[in-house]
């Protein structure tokens, strides 16, 4: 066995050993089904901005116990200064690079290997340490883009009614999002993630159109308003899904950013879910929401993340480190860049060239 292969296999074994009890229950997939290793390459080129200072902040994946482990990480760049940091309110791991205006070429290449395991919750009670409980309570608070009062509070009350059990309340909110929203392909990127904008649409049109950040943000706001700690998790699909091409299809992931949700139940811990991908499934496979397939996957995605998506961070309405010129970011799923202090549009490929590729390795 070559040294490189040995390191990767050892790391995978380590990831399994760290898996918490709720992930090793008999209902989880077999080891072979649930594990995947991806070699990921991200490339950035800001050379089009001649005679201008450029700064780039790239969100990076961190280890998540039982789901994701970053095995190798490397960079190649001609930036004047560059470093890795998680010095921000949410501990969002970031790669920062800065080029002086005199630099003719401004490029950055990042490479990493990430081991992923299906994250399947079995909803069995387990012991949660007081520190985790305390930290989870921070995700009850509103933020600039996540209100918990006004229309959000009113709708949350209507959905949950007299229900007291937090897990049942969370399920009602999840089902309500799936039932009342649809994927709007005209929305740029992952959407803006404004719960109030979604609820205004519902009031006017009787349903809500958006993308993953819009639906996830609304889900989080409604859960927080119902007393359930919750957060959006920005990430990116890195490979084909076993369940549907709608959930990830290939090796070019440049436009594969996707936001999911986590919520916290005091005797179970953080539980994954993904209401937005059900609306994508319905659109891409041209099936009805109440079809057996959509209903089965909606049921599965309450408590499940597949191993073809890497989580980046759960940061919202926060300040980057080092500080940028434009101020607080509303979310950090896309690489963020400034040219002479001005925001660079991540959806403008002529001035901001970046590509994300991944290759599935050992299984």
């Amino acid at each position, binding site marked *: 066995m070559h040294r490189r292969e040995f390191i990767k296999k050892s790391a995978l074994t380590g990831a399994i050993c760290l898996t918490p009890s709720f992930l090793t229950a008999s209902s989880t997939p077999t080891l072979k089904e649930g594990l995947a290793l991806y070699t990921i390459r991200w490339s950035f080129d800001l050379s089009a901005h001649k005679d201008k200072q450029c700064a780039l902040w790239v969100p990076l994946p961190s280890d998540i116990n039982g789901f994701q482990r970053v095995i190798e990480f490397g960079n190649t760049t001609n930036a004047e200064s560059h470093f890795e940091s998680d010095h921000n309110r949410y501990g969002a791991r970031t790669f920062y690079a800065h080029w002086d205006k005199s630099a003719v070429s401004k490029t950055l290449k990042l490479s990493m290997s990430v081991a992923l395991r299906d994250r399947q919750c079995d909803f069995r009670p387990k012991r949660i340490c007081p520190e985790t409980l305390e930290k989870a309570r921070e995700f009850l608070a509103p933020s600039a883009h996540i209100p918990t009062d006004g229309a959000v509070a009113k709708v949350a009350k209507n959905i949950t009614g007299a229900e007291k059990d937090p897990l049942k309340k969370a399920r009602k909110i999840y089902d309500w999002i799936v039932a009342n929203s649809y994927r709007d392909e005209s929305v740029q990127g992952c959407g*803006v993630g404004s719960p109030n904008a979604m609820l205004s649409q519902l009031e006017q049109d009787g349903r809500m159109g958006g993308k993953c950040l819009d639906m996830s943000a609304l889900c989080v706001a409604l859960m927080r308003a119902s007393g359930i700690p919750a957060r959006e998790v920005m990430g990116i699909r890195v490979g084909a899904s076993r369940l549907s091409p709608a959930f990830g299809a290939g090796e070019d992931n440049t436009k594969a950013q996707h936001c999911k949700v986590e919520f916290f139940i005091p005797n179970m811990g953080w539980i994954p879910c993904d209401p937005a991908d059900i609306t994508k499934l319905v659109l891409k496979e041209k099936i009805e929401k109440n079809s057996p397939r959509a209903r089965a996957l909606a049921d599965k995605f309450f408590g499940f993340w597949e191993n073809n998506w890497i989580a980046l961070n759960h940061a919202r309405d926060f300040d980057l480190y080092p500080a940028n010129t434009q*101020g607080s970011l509303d979310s950090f799923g896309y690489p963020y860049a400034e040219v002479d202090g001005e925001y660079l549009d991540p959806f403008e490929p002529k001035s901001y060239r970046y590509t994300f590729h991944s290759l599935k390795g050992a299984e």
Partner: protein
Amino acid sequence: MGKIALSLLLLTSLAYAKEWRLHINGMHCIACTLAVKKALMGVSGVQEAKVNFKNESAIVITDEKVTLRMMQDSVAQTGYSAIAQK
């Protein structure tokens, strides 16, 4: 000859360039700066516009024909508002 004419044109435009400092209302995230910038650059005679979310402001370089009203109307069409900073 062409280069001389171009240089004269550039010098003339710089000589008559005017700098505006605007306060922008209604931006709720950094991406809003793109829409405001596009609106300002869409006004005939605007040479450069830099928009800042943190300070809710814009610095705009225009030729002498551009008025505050022209920029305000263009920005208003995108759902934001602009007023001159003192």
